[in-house]
């Protein structure tokens, strides 16, 4: 490979075209000095002028603590706000019927139901799926909203109250309150008593108790400590959020270990009150949506 010929600054002309060259030569191949087309050059100048106009009209230059605002005070943030407001206005128009209609009326009217389900679905995806999962399927400790087992009630009104005021959400005066005591940790029940009562509860739910479990002793412990909230027959009490212990659904798991854990340490899941964050129409739509997931009563 040969070294590039040093650049000569003498004007050099190409023999064939008579045009000047750039003086660059690579392995004997020289480059014609073809000027930019006029139209290209003028277009370029126009874009420079355009950019100056742009600086004046639109926010452009950063200053120490702010920026130039342009002649008309345009701001992309303000433009987005206007668009968002327009969208919200349109949605409110669509949902105007939800404002006055009762939950039952919404559920009964195909048109209102369609709007409520659409709005509820969007709001659910935004606010609820974090805990209750996509489609309201829940997870251990987070209730499944598609089944027919409700800790605090599955009627429209109950669901609305739960969403509005939350569960054990101390910042809300009307929040739902109820406590599963930590029977073991607080020394109310001894370890063997806990195992006895768990085995007894397992027998209520048609789950397998431990081999040779003393169910009679367990029933005695149950009657003395649990029946007040969960009821004589273990059917639960929605007033205080005491779940039904006889059904097939276990919020914290149906294994013996999980149940011992519940009795020993207690359980107190928390749900925020949404009335401070969502407007009443959205809460109505969410109520109808959750009610329509399958478990609504």
């Amino acid at each position, binding site marked *: 490979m040969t070294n590039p010929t040093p650049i000569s600054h003498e004007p050099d002309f190409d023999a064939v075209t008579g045009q000047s060259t750039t003086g660059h030569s690579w392995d004997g191949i020289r480059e014609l000095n073809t000027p930019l087309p006029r139209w290209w050059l003028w277009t370029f100048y126009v874009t420079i002028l355009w950019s100056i106009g742009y600086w004046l009209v639109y926010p452009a230059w950063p200053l120490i603590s702010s920026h130039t605002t342009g002649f008309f005070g345009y701001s992309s943030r303000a433009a987005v706000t206007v668009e968002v407001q327009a969208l919200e206005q349109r949605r409110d128009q669509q949902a105007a019927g939800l404002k006055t209609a009762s939950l039952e009326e919404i*559920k009964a009217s195909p048109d209102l139901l369609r709007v409520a389900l659409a709005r509820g679905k969007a709001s659910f995806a935004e606010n609820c799926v974090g805990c209750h999962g996509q489609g309201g399927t829940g997870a251990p400790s987070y209730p499944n909203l598609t089944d027919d087992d409700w800790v605090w009630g599955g009627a429209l009104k109950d669901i609305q109250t739960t969403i509005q005021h939350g569960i054990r959400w101390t910042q809300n005066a009307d929040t739902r309150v109820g406590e599963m005591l930590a029977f073991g940790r607080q020394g109310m029940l001894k370890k063997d008593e806990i195992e006895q009562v768990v085995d007894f509860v397992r027998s209520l739910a048609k789950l397998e108790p431990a081999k040779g479990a003393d169910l009679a002793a367990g029933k005695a412990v149950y009657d003395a400590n649990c029946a007040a909230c969960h009821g004589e027959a273990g059917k639960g009490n929605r007033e205080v959020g005491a779940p039904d212990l006889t059904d097939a659904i276990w919020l914290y798991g149906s294994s013996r270990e999980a149940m011992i854990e519940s009795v020993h340490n207690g359980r107190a899941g928390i749900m925020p009150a949404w009335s401070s964050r969502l407007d009443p129409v959205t809460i109505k739509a969410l109520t109808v949506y959750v009610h329509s997931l399958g478990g609504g009563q």
Partner: protein
Amino acid sequence: MTSHVTIPDEDGPLYAAAKKVYPQSVKGRFRRIKWALLAFCLGVYYFLPFVRWDRGPALPDQAVLVDFERRRFYFFFIELWPQEVYYLTGLLILAAIVLFLMNAIAGRIWCGYLCPQTVWTDLFLAVERLIEGDRRDRIKLDGESWSASKVGLKAAKHFIWLMIAWWTGGAWVLYFSDAPTLVKDLATFEAPFSAYLWIGILTATTYVFAGHMREQVCLYMCPWPRIQAALTDSDALNVTYKFDRGEPRASVKQAAQLKAAGQPAGDCVECKQCIAVCPTGIDIREGTQLGCIQCGLCIDACDDVMGKLGRPTGLIGYDTLKAVEARACGTTPPALRLIRPRTMLYAAIIAFVGGAMLYQLATRAFLGMSVVHERTPLFTTLKDGSIRNAYTLRIANKRSEERPIAITLDAPMGTTWEVVGAQQTADWRPIVVIPPDSTLDVRLFVTMPQPQAKGPSQMIQIKAADLSFGESASVKDNFFAP
């Protein structure tokens, strides 16, 4: 450093400037056919949107309407939904094969008589002739320097052209919205922007293509002449100069001298009328060629001359390559073969595709249903241990009446089902009411008790029955269990 460079031989410029064609007016059989077809095609195009067709109060009453907003296509008694767009595929196949069949029978019938480029160019030429005069006057006018009268003539021509082009664009948008309403909105400047935009686009294309580019579109832009040349055969009728009869060319006087000297003389008198009237400016006597759109105007021109000379007409005419060659060899030309494998094949394809479309249309279902199984969750365990699955049904009502649809299930005994929002029931079946000409998504819950709910899945059938028309639709899907 010096080097000797040779300039490569030049084969001439790669760019040929367009030569302006000044077609001369002509009268005759083919000109009359072309006028009639022009009137018919443009009449259909401009006025079809105003034809009404009653479809009941819920649907538009425009006979031909592409309704993008509601996603429907209406063509008289036919109404198509977006999922039925395969009819368009059928139409395109039919269009292609009909084009092939026309070509196998009589060459470029499409190009010469029916193509929009030909029809609008013909109309624009008629306007040009009306204002600037015939071929000689136009050539003379273009050669003159600019004067007030020339400016006036040119301005008048372009104004009328633009009006026609504007009307063409205006008619186009009428196919996409209710025509009378849109005309009113356009006139009061209340029509949507897209309407004005499309009128503008089609005004521009019509004005440029029919007014200025004309034969250039056929020569340089259109793919069909290239395909057509590959598809034609020696049995197809084409506009042909019968060289066996025309050659050697000689004027009337020369021909008489040649004949007196006992030498052959053809019928072509080299009057060049066939070139003068040609809208693409070609010489048909050079044979079948890409530039010939086979409009038949040279036939009219030549027949006119032959008639005046008292010679038989048809020196230029529709003829097959085989016939011309046979006559040149002095044998009798073979009879025209309309029925040959090629035409039969095309006809069979047309019949098959057209028949399939007609069958599909005649047996089109007015009730449709599809199902999507809920994925989150696949199933839900209920308090009593029974299993519930959720489905979203999309029920399509393709009639223009509201219809109550009963939902039933083909599933193991003990299975129950409910539809969210269904208020009434008929014999325990939930009823959903589907509005006219629309689809409705409904949520269906199916609950199966243990032990019928066998895991991991079993097939169930969901049926939708129309209580008023007696139509039904059904879908199959899985029922999942742990």
